[in-house]
């Protein structure tokens, strides 16, 4: 009978553990780390579509300098930030309202509602964009509905005007992602002991004040995590804009991913696109990624 320790420590060295981690490491290395480094490297070269010898024309920081003079790229960054902010604000607001409502309903009722609510989450953002294209169509259901109130396309031009195109994509995003917030918050709400509310009730607190005094502080952590996750997800938005507006009209809804994609594959400016997406990744990491990791590490320590 074997008696050796089941575990091993790093100092002893053990092949099996390395072998177990190796496949994951290789995939991450070859499909993520290597392309990222290669892309970063190529952003200092002038790479078109030709690709025969990408590292031929070293141009230093020119691609990054070009970004500073490219008003569309800056517009794209700004649009992406607006999109993230608008998307997060809306989904959090509607998500919170609905989660609290669902929580107050009887369990059986919310058990029926919840599966219906997860439907949008399962649909590809591409199709979400397509669906909302039908809705925003000048001959579609939205304008028919607005027409009932005497409103028309001149009051809300939707995806056809640069003033409202980005807002239109944000609304479509709300439709898809609000259920995610609802589900996560509902799980969070379930973890709050009933006694807290009972005590507050005895103190004479109403529904609103008990929400702000109990629910919100206790769910601070959950909010923090979904804020960072939503931030990351919205900052790389591509599919929904791709299918809903394509970035138009007049670049009013172009996001950084859309712009980099079109630079790479429409304009054949591969290296400029890599510089753009490197900038996008840098912003994502600084604004959302590092706080998320720190949060995680703090959590796993405690």
């Amino acid at each position, binding site marked *: 009978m074997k008696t050796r320790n089941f575990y091993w420590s790093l100092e002893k060295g053990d092949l099996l553990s390395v072998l177990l981690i190796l496949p994951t490491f290789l995939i991450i290395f070859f499909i993520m780390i290597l392309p990222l480094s290669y892309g970063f490297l190529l952003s200092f070269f002038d790479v078109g579509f030709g690709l025969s010898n990408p590292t031929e024309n070293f141009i230093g920081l020119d691609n990054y300098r070009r970004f500073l003079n490219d008003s569309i790229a800056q517009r794209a960054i700004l649009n992406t930030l607006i999109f993230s902010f608008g998307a997060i604000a809306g989904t959090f607001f509607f998500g919170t309202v609905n989660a609290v409502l669902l929580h107050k309903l009887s369990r059986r009722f919310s058990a029926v509602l919840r599966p219906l609510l997860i439907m949008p989450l399962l649909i590809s953002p591409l199709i979400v964009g397509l669906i909302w294209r039908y809705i925003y169509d000048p001959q579609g259901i939205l304008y028919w509905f607005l027409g009932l109130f005497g409103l028309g396309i001149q009051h809300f031009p939707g995806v056809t005007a640069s003033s409202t195109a980005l807002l239109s994509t944000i609304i479509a995003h709300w439709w898809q992602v609000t259920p995610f917030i609802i589900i996560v918050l509902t799980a969070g709400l379930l973890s709050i002991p009933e006694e807290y509310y009972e005590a507050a009730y005895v103190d004479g607190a109403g529904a609103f004040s008990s929400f702000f005094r109990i629910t919100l502080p206790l769910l601070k952590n959950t909010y923090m995590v979904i804020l960072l996750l939503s931030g990351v997800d919205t900052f790389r938005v591509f599919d929904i804009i791709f299918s809903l507006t394509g970035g138009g*009209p007049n670049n009013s809804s172009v996001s950084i991913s859309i712009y980099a994609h079109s630079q790479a594959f429409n304009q054949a400016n591969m290296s400029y696109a890599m510089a753009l997406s490197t900038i996008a990744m840098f912003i994502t990491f600084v604004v959302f990624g590092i706080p998320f990791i720190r949060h995680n590490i703090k959590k796993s320590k405690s």
Partner: protein
Amino acid sequence: MKFKQTLLAVVLCAIVLSLMACGNRGDAEGDIPEVLVSVWAGPQADLQKQVVADFAGANVTISDVDFGNLRTRQMTSFHAAPGTGNYDVVWVNSQWMNDYVEAGFIMPINEFIASSGLDTSIYVSGLMDAITFDGQIFGLPTFIQTMILVYDSEVFEAEGLRAPTNSDELIAVARHFYEQGSGIALPARQGGAAATLFTQLLYSEGGDFFDANGNLNLTSPEAIHAATVYGQLARYSVSGSLAWHHDEVGNALRTRLAPIGVLMSGLANQNHDPERSLIVDTVRYAPLPGSGGIAAASNTFWVWAIAANSANPQAAFDFITWMASPETETRKTLFNQQISAVNALIADPAVVAATPFLPVVMEQVGNGRSDPTLTNFGVMREALIVSLSEIASTGADPATVMQQLQDSLADVDFSH
């Protein structure tokens, strides 16, 4: 252990599927070569997919992509390593030809033409000229399109109107219907359709974007007139037009939302499809006239071209000659009312009978011309699109807007 069995089943499935994933490059059958073709997923695509089944020379797969992504897809394919499922044949919009030829994406077909004895004089000569660069032919022309007037004769008769023959009459007719609550259907959305419409109005006035010295001139009387006509038409357009592209205009006409409209002729075949159209029996066509009554097209057509990185250019050439042959084109035209570039078909009585808009299109193409192939023409066009959108949506004075446009383009080089 139900879980274990399920797991086992899933694992087996996954292994089988992964094996399928490996052998996936499309298995060539016997000696028949494979030809992969990229076309626009337009109103002609279904028919193209149907007829290729009859081509014996190769095993043809048609990949149709919407207009917005077509160019991207083709560009990606031109750079793909050969044998990774890149396109052998591309269906190219005539406006892209210059770029493709300059970048070396498509190959000249003179040698193939010489060895096969193909007679290229069967095609409309103006179009052949447009795809010949330095004496080298880069494809075969097909599918001519231009914007034409479409109207519902029943409504016109009831109102005692006739088809407009010059731009003043056109505006008057649009106004007549506008005052009744509808108007003219126009692709006035900020986009390429509006720019094409403006170009056509400009050419119909006998004007051009450039003066005799090759300098940009958007404030010529003809250009101002074209912009004014455009503004007036937009003003008397049916509600929603400002958000429309070609397709929506077609829908509006076919569902009787508007009794008259400016439609891309490539979509006119749908007017005769009872599944989509309420105006099958009453639809009529007229040229889109300038103030002197002359109608001229901004010529756009499509070109069958062979990708430079095709692994099988001979089979690709055989395919495009077959696709653009008078026999196949006749068949397609009779079935789907698409206008080919084969001279003989334009006079064929059966074809004319099946394609009620053919005479109008050919008249406009006869008077028409192609857009200049200048490097910065696209820059001008993009700026023009924004200006036209301004004219249509704000009712701004066309002369002022065109002057501003001219000034904003002062630094752009149009010399080559």
